[in-house]
């Protein structure tokens, strides 16, 4: 699943005039069948068990190529290189079996001003057997870009994270994590691949994909998750590779509050899981 050509096209196309409003179009793939070896590879990289039920974060990688197609197009108002993933909300309506053919649809909406620039939501919907089973909303920020002011609050309050000492795990995240996740997600953004390519974009080292961190955190709750859930994640400071970070998890009602952070200092992710 190499999206490198798309990135290249987007990089070249990032110069020159762009549209100022969102294109009113949708990208879709009908009857997508899950490749079980790809699913197993994804599960291994993120720490999920190899199973028939898709990890809640897996459909994101099915929708991701369509997102990139939409964003790499010159009709998209923000340049793909430099977009920062700041928020991701996934709702799983029911457990999705790997054998089910899936219809994947992606569109963009809510192109509004953000205190630091402009933000946009890429919304992916997955249907199985004619009914919606999965919804993903990925919010990206383009620093310094301009967009119309939002009607209301542009972003709901971020998940609270975990207060106190609910340490669930210490992860030693190695330097190859970005390359491995790029291999299973198709997200070959150079900031994740190597210290040198990351430095070209202003990062001191390569950084982990937010969706890897989000997947890894959810995988840590294996066996304790409801089949239907909403997983709301706000991404904080970039997780530089390699790093040793902590996962904190605390039960909250029938769900969980989570965060991933360094022992002292940076919070990389705060999240909630709600049934």
């Amino acid at each position, binding site marked *: 699943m190499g999206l490198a050509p798309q990135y290249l096209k987007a990089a070249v196309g990032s110069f020159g005039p762009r549209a100022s409003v969102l294109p009113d179009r949708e990208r879709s793939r009908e009857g997508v069948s899950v490749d*079980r*070896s790809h699913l*197993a*590879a994804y599960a*291994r990289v993120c720490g999920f*068990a*190899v*199973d*028939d039920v898709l990890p809640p974060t897996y459909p994101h990688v099915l929708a991701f190529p369509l997102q990139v197609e939409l964003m790499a197009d010159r009709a998209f108002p923000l340049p793909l290189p430099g977009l920062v993933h700041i928020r991701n909300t996934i709702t799983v309506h029911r457990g999705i079996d*790997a*054998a089910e053919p899936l219809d994947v649809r992606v569109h963009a909406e809510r192109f509004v001003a953000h205190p630091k620039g402009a933000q946009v939501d890429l919304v992916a919907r997955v249907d199985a057997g004619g009914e919606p089973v999965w919804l993903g909303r990925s919010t990206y920020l383009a620093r310094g870009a301009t967009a119309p002011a939002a009607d209301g609050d542009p972003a709901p309050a971020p998940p609270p994270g975990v207060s106190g000492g609910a340490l669930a795990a210490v992860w030693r995240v190695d330097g190859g994590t970005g390359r491995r996740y790029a291999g299973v997600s198709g997200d070959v953004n150079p900031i994740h691949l190597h210290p040198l390519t990351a430095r070209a974009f202003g990062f001191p080292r390569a950084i982990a994909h937010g969706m890897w961190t989000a997947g890894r955190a959810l995988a840590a709750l*294996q*066996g*304790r998750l409801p089949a239907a859930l909403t997983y709301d994640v706000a991404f904080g400071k970039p997780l530089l590779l390699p790093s040793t970070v902590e996962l904190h998890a605390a039960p909250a009602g029938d769900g969980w509050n989570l965060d991933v952070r360094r022992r002292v200092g940076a919070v990389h992710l705060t999240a909630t899981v709600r049934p």
Partner: protein
Amino acid sequence: MPETRKAAVIGGNRIPFARANGAYARASNLDMLTATLDGLAARFGLAGERIGEVAGGAVLKHSRDRDLTREAVLGSTLSPSTPAYDVQQACGTGLETAVLVANKIALGQIESGVAAGVDTASDAPVALNDDLRRVLMELNGARSLGARLKALRGLRPGQIVPEVPRNAEPRTGLSMGEHAALTALEWHVGREEQDELTVASHRNLAAAYDRGFFDDLVTPYLGLSRDQNLRPDTSVEKLAKLKPVFGKGEGATMTAGNSTPLTDGAAAVLLGSDEWAAQHRLPVLAHLVDAETAAVDFVLGSDGLLTAPLYAVPRLLERNGLTLGDFDFYEIHEAFASTVLATLKAWEDPAFAKERLGLDAPLGAIDRAKLNVAGSSLATGHPFAATGGRIVATLAKLLHEKGSVGGRKSRGLISICAAGGQGVVAILEGN
């Protein structure tokens, strides 16, 4: 402490068994065992439930799979306050876990338990070359630069070749099949009878699937809903075309068809006290009455590697005041067709009874129509530690279906041979 009681077999769950490098090529023992426990929990409403214990195990294990069963419990929907431990007794592992759990239930130490087993031949542990490992251990322990350099001088190019697990006995260097071929020769087990037993296993398994027998025993996994090795249309004519793979020359009769293939899979059985089952509104299919494990000296003695059940069964029968004919079902694990046939011949043999078992008369012949009636390892495949769980759940359901026989409870005998010259056998009684 309550008096001893018979542990109830409440039900089972397994995933279909897959041929090595087949449907489960990418799944680990941990993945398969966790999925199997989750399936069991789903079937019997045990999500979030604290179970007395889970005993499980695998024969081929990575060094990272320390306390594999506990890890599987932690990743499953069972309550994390369920304790677990690993057992390893070659192909006897699965049945031995059931015996251990049943004994604790019998003593009143626990009210419920899960016996499980899993094995993968696809994701088998490949270890560092042992010479290289020794060099690295020495290097790790070296305190000075000189000592480190000395350790490094032990490095050789050939050490890049890893240690691959072999299906061979460490002390004899013979594979299980080669050992079984020796026993087949000793008992004059013919090619045709082996192929006939193989066909029966496939037909019985196919028929059991067709009548829905496995609907509440098997949960589909990774796209597989039946055992991948099952060939309903196999025949003696087709099997006759295969070349022998174990043994040599004229007397070689064992083929890839009448031997079990390397297989991936997992199985679990739910056991409990009758009271616990009633409280949870769960059925009791059968009770585990008694069990016996035997071992033989296959290295320097005159017994075959897979012949320990020959000794275990007579001891078990005597202790329970039963004869070999007193059973409605016989589940004799089909490691190889020849193993089952040699076992039956030995039990029929007066000389063996007298000289080896010290009995006046042989155990006798069994009614072959009662043997492995829902298929066995030749058809399902044999993921070593998973076979015991498969057989216990299958037999418990067969006994439950049978009901009572002439005013007594239906009765079944399980016999599982294992590498290392061991064998685990057990009696189940229908409920």
